[in-house]
């Protein structure tokens, strides 16, 4: 009997649909990475997919992207998206200084850091706070699962007090809210999302890539091996049940001239640095992500109530970045010829004379 799935002998083979191309003429395959070695079902894999799709949809050349990470399950994930982008796997918790240096050396690079709650909120907190207060222009994704997955699941500093491990151990210290910290210290685009919310995460990532400044996204990404049980506040079930989205987020690229009528009472539209727009349909009455003080207050109340507040928490598209504060030249420092980077001998003579 003929296989119904195969064309009959003599029939022309169907032409496969041409893969979708972005505005550079690249297909999504050009944005792929290596095969993941993370656990099946790990939220981090979904985030990697959203990241590469976002760069593909925005039409960012992969060669212009620099990926950074520290140590941990999360920090392995840059190997699983965008092989055509340079990537640096830094020492544990030290990704911010490597990223800052690389992005100052070449300001035309589009930086993305992928870190975890351990890499950011524990060993790397000292570097993290300085990255955000400098408003280093880059996307900083925290894949937050509340445990150290790579070392067999101890609590991290973002574990909520009262939550339990499989062993029965109870978290008894206050959780660090990386979003609140980032807003307080000067990050200019701060959002929280969930690896299982494809639509929201995609829109927030695209906005983050389009934004100029530190764009921090804390993405709840359940650890299926060590922290997805009853009693955990970072499990799929808990996050789904307690997800409190502030808005319905959609992103409108600058290269698509879409005009939509909206009621300013129900929708906030934020124009980002590259002319693209984030359209935020309010799900919570009165929340304005441009109000820094109110966003901090709302985060604190969500923490008290055990809610997972998601969406765009805070944004300031005009905040000066580290590049502005340093007054860097437009041309990348890495490509400047020596005659433009080395001061003439007279400058050294003047220094020597001043010390005599």
């Amino acid at each position, binding site marked *: 009997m003929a296989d119904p799935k195969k064309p009959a002998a003599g029939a022309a083979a169907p032409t496969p649909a041409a893969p979708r191309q972005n505005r550079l003429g690249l297909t999504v395959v*050009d944005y792929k990475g*290596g095969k993941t*070695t993370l656990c099946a079902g790990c939220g981090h894999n979904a985030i990697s997919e959203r990241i590469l799709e976002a760069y593909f949809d925005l039409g960012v*050349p*992969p*060669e*212009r992207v*620099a990926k950074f990470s520290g*140590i941990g399950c999360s920090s392995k994930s*840059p*190997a699983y998206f965008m*092989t*055509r*982008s*340079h*990537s*640096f*796997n*830094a*020492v544990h918790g030290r990704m911010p200084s490597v990223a800052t240096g*690389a992005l100052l050396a*070449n300001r*035309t*690079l589009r930086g993305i850091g992928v870190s975890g709650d351990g890499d950011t909120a524990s060993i790397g907190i000292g570097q993290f706070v300085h990255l955000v207060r400098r408003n280093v222009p880059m996307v900083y994704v925290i894949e937050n699962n509340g445990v150290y997955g790579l070392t067999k699941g101890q609590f991290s500093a973002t574990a909520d007090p009262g939550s339990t491990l499989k062993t029965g151990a109870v978290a008894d210290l206050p959780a660090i809210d990386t979003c609140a910290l980032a807003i307080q210290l000067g990050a200019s685009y701060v959002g929280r999302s969930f690896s299982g919310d494809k639509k929201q995460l995609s829109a927030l990532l695209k906005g983050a890539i389009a934004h100029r400044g530190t764009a921090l996204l804390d993405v709840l990404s359940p650890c299926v091996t060590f922290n997805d049980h009853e009693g955990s506040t970072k499990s799929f079930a808990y996050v789904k049940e307690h997800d409190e989205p502030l808005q319905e987020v959609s992103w409108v690229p600058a290269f698509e001239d879409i005009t939509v009528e909206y009621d300013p009472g129900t929708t906030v539209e934020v124009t980002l640095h590259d002319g693209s727009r984030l359209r935020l349909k309010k799900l919570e009455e009165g929340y304005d992500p441009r109000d820094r003080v109110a966003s901090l207050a709302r985060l604190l109340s969500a923490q008290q109530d055990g809610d997972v507040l998601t969406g765009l928490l805070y944004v300031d598209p005009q905040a000066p970045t580290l590049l502005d504060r340093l007054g860097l030249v437009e041309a*990348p420092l*890495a490509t400047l010829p*020596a005659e433009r980077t*080395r001061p003439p*001998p007279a400058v*050294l003579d003047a*220094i*020597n004379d001043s010390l005599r």
Partner: protein
Amino acid sequence: MAVDAFDVAERFQTPVFVLSDLDLGMNQWMAEPFRYPARPLDRGKVLDAAALERAGGFARYRDVDGDGIGWRTLPGTDHPRAAYFTRGTGHDEQAAYSEKSDVYERNLARLKRKLDGAREALPAPVLTGAGTAAVGVLAYGSSDPGVRESVAQLAAERGLAVDYLRVRAWPFARAVRDFVASHQRTYVVEQNRDGQLAGLLALDLDPALAAKLRPIPRTDGLPLDARTVTDTILAREGR
């Protein structure tokens, strides 16, 4: 020295540690005027997009020149084959993750070739004396003024002629080995509780040469003084 350090870091693709000490860092010192760098910055082996196109690609950690140093590209090089992944784990020549023993061993052997190649490219040791004395003294860094004064004291007070080699970099130049080989005994003077310079030398030298080392580690929190060195060497020499 900072200019040299950056050149070495880029040429050998390795971090460079410049040693200082509290006395140098916290106090005002007289110094020779700083000299304007005579040569351009050395970026080492860097492939740009055009070179990459001509080569048809590259493998970040492949030792094509036999010196253990692979070619690299800079982030932002506009070529689809420019990117590589700098990772903290075991990796193959293509910078891809690997746990294979032979790959790991090959990589470590390459790094050894690279470090060995750096020996003569680093600041060379400085010899004081004719090089023909029976006794040598070896030191580094800010021990230098105290040791030079001690060398003068040994000659003036007891007529003991010694040669002094000031080591200025690790991995050690071949001249360090030759110095130890050409002296019957070499005192290794350092401001360090554990005698770490002597330890590094012992690791680097053949056992027969390592046996010629006479460590003089000293730590009292103060800059090294000549009298201590002189008296220690005289006691050890039975003079």
